[in-house]
């Protein structure tokens, strides 16, 4: 990037000399100081004529002090020498000559010079201090106004506007602010980037991308040689940004001073931005927590409200089925079986809807543990034993599979939903094969049914919410939630699910993959068996 020159030479020059006022002004001050003594001379002559005072040179301290307080050290020293010269010329013999005859007078004049010099220094220092105090006061006042404005700012945009306004008032130059949403992202939210010359814009981008520009971030625009000061915001805010000051081409500014005042502004702004970030985060978290607990409460009460009557229906029907009157009558037995079967199915569907409601928004917190793959399969088979009762289950689960890392409840529920799906969409009496295999760091569970299957373009879509395959839609009722929930459960448990049409015959193959222990891990997981 040789189109941007960081102005190290100018910088060093300014730092070394660090003059705050140009030479021309000193010459002017010295001239004024001498003129003041010359103007004062007639007054001194009048006083001497009237009072006959001998040590009239004391009177020349008056212009010295005036020059010191008004114009500073240079003017005061000039006035002191002017006063000495005037005294020698007008009042000490030989008159109208700069020579002084009497040793007393010479000592008096020398003393005058010393006193005038000290006085000059003291009053000039006092003047300087007063000036600094006044400037500090102005800056403080400005900073307070700025802080008040920041405190009242409702958002980052207002804070940036305030930074711009105050920085510009402070340095008396146009100021631009460029901000970025996150490190390296070229989203200029304040919109000033476009208005900067190309070279400066590039330097700003480099700063925003985390690059360090050394040399105090003074940049010279190659096209017109104007100089720009760049100051990055604090890194602690979530909103990195750069403040850009266009320097006055006519005057040489006090860079350290400028930098210091801009940095104070930026620190204030950064602190406010941080506070604001924090406040937003806290408010967001609180809102999330409340909506989460509301959701949990609603799901909990819906679960109770729906399941309690269902428990009575299912329980009563199951008791009825055992009474001699019903079990002895084929028709009545069939009817109670329908009640039981439908109630159980309804229970599963309610469970799915509640799971779906809980999933839409809330984040599942998986409780990962090492689990035997066979346990997952058996738990799924056990909890769906009634739905699977009319199908032949063929289980192929080798005894030496590695343990899988999963949330037991989520993974077995997902497997159960896949099994339920297989049973629901294939004819009674059909075979459902469950095969588990170890494959390069994971265990794959394949559930293969003899149902209507799915087309190649349907395969990826069956995990979408409420999606139901065209063939399934025609034949069976369902919520279209089961596989979507299974997918979400597995995603939370660091697993994966996929579906494909069966290749050897009609049917669907759903595979679930879970991360598994390596052989070395298996050694450790077993502990010692002594």
């Amino acid at each position, binding site marked *: 990037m040789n189109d941007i020159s960081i102005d190290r030479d100018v910088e060093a020059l300014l730092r070394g000399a660090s003059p705050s006022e140009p030479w021309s002004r000193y010459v002017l001050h010295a001239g004024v100081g001498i003129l003041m003594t010359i103007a004062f001379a007639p007054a001194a002559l009048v006083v001497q004529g009237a009072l006959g005072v001998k040590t009239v040179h004391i009177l020349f301290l008056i212009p010295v002090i005036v020059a010191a307080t008004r114009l500073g050290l240079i003017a005061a020293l000039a006035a002191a020498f002017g006063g000495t010269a005037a005294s020698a010329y007008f009042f000490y013999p030989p008159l109208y000559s700069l020579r002084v005859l009497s040793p007393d007078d010479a000592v008096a004049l020398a003393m005058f010079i010393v006193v005038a010099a000290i006085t000059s220094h003291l009053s000039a220092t006092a003047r300087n201090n007063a000036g600094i105090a006044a400037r500090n006061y102005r800056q403080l006042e400005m900073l307070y106004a700025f802080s008040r404005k920041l405190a009242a700012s409702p958002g980052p945009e207002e804070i940036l506007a305030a930074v711009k306004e105050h920085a510009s008032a402070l340095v008396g130059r146009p100021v631009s602010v460029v901000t970025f949403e996150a490190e390296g992202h070229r989203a200029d939210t304040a919109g000033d980037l476009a208005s900067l010359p190309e070279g400066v814009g590039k330097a700003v981008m480099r700063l925003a991308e985390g690059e360090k520009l050394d040399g105090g971030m003074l940049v010279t625009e190659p096209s017109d040689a104007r100089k720009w000061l760049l100051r990055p915001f604090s890194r602690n805010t979530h909103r990195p940004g750069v403040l850009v000051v266009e320097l006055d081409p006519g005057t040489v500014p006090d860079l350290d001073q400028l930098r210091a005042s801009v940095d104070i502004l930026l620190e204030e702004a950064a602190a406010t931005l941080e506070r604001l970030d924090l406040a937003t985060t806290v408010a967001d978290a609180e809102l999330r927590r409340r909506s989460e607990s509301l959701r949990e409460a609603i799901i909990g009460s819906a*679960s109770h409200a729906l*399941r309690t009557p269902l428990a009575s229906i*299912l329980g*009563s029907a199951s008791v009825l089925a*055992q009474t001699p009157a019903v079990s002895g009558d084929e028709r009545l037995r069939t009817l109670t079986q329908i009640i039981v079967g439908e109630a159980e199915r309804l229970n599963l569907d309610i469970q799915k809807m509640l799971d779906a409601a809980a999933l839409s928004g809330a984040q599942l917190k998986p409780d990962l543990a090492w*689990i035997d793959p066979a346990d997952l399969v058996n*738990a799924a088979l056990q909890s769906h034993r009634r739905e699977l009762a009319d199908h032949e289950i063929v289980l192929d*689960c080798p005894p030496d599979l590695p343990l899988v890392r999963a949330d037991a409840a989520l993974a077995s529920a997902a497997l159960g939903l896949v099994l339920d799906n297989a049973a629901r969409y294939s004819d009674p009496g059909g075979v459902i094969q469950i095969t588990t295999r170890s494959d390069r760091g994971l265990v794959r569970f394949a559930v293969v049914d003899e149902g209507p299957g799915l087309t190649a373009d349907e395969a990826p879509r069956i995990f979408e919410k409420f999606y139901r395959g065209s063939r399934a839609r025609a034949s069976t009722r369902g919520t279209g939630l089961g596989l979507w929930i299974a997918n979400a459960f597995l995603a939370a448990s660091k697993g994966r699910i996929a579906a494909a049409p069966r290749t050897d015959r009609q049917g669907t193959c759903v595979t679930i993959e879970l991360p598994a222990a390596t052989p070395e891990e298996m050694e450790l997981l077993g502990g010692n068996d002594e």
Partner: protein
Amino acid sequence: MSNPRQTVLIVEDEPQMRRFLRAGFELDGLDVDEAETAQAGVKLATLKPFDLVVVDLGLPDHDGTYVIERLRAWSTVPIIVLSVRFHESEKVRVLDLGADDYVVKPFGMAELLARARAALRRKAPGAALQPVVTVGPLSIDLAHRRIQVAGKPVQMTPKEYRLLEILAQHWGKVVTHQHLLREIWGAAHADAAHYLRILVRKTRQKIEEDPARPRLLTTELGVGYRLAPPSPSTAEPSQAREAS
């Protein structure tokens, strides 16, 4: 049931639930008493002896665990907990408090009755003194520390034997991971549930006909393990099928 009439206490606030539970237990030959609240249930249990307590976890006045805690202060009566939704940690909690079993609502009566029978048999007089527990083809001789499968002795490692011993002492009941880990490996390994997974797998390979589909040593996912109830003289369905 050969015993004199046994009595079950049902602590449940839903009248419909109580009604069908009563009908189901009475059909099975048990007498039934009912309580609507936790307080009333505890009070009733102090007034007369019960052979079994069935308690709902969501009661209007107290959590069902209140009933378990109060009863366990002085009684070893079998307790079965019912609840609409059981998280694994809640299951572990009610078991730790001293419940014998839990059944998730909705459930079929046959399932509850199977659990109830196992609990009643476990607490029957003399049940605790059996030196040999026989479950299907598996026989665990606690007195001689011997394991036989289908009449043939099987070599067990000390930990495998200890696992079967603990499960046999609590046959029919879920024994939590924590309990097993503490007993077998010591308190320092109470979190190392994976030790248990591997040990159970090895044990199953020695005792189960099909280790992939265990019938004797079953897993309660996220909770613990259970040794199936010993084979009684009267045939009991190994896997209760509802309403059939």
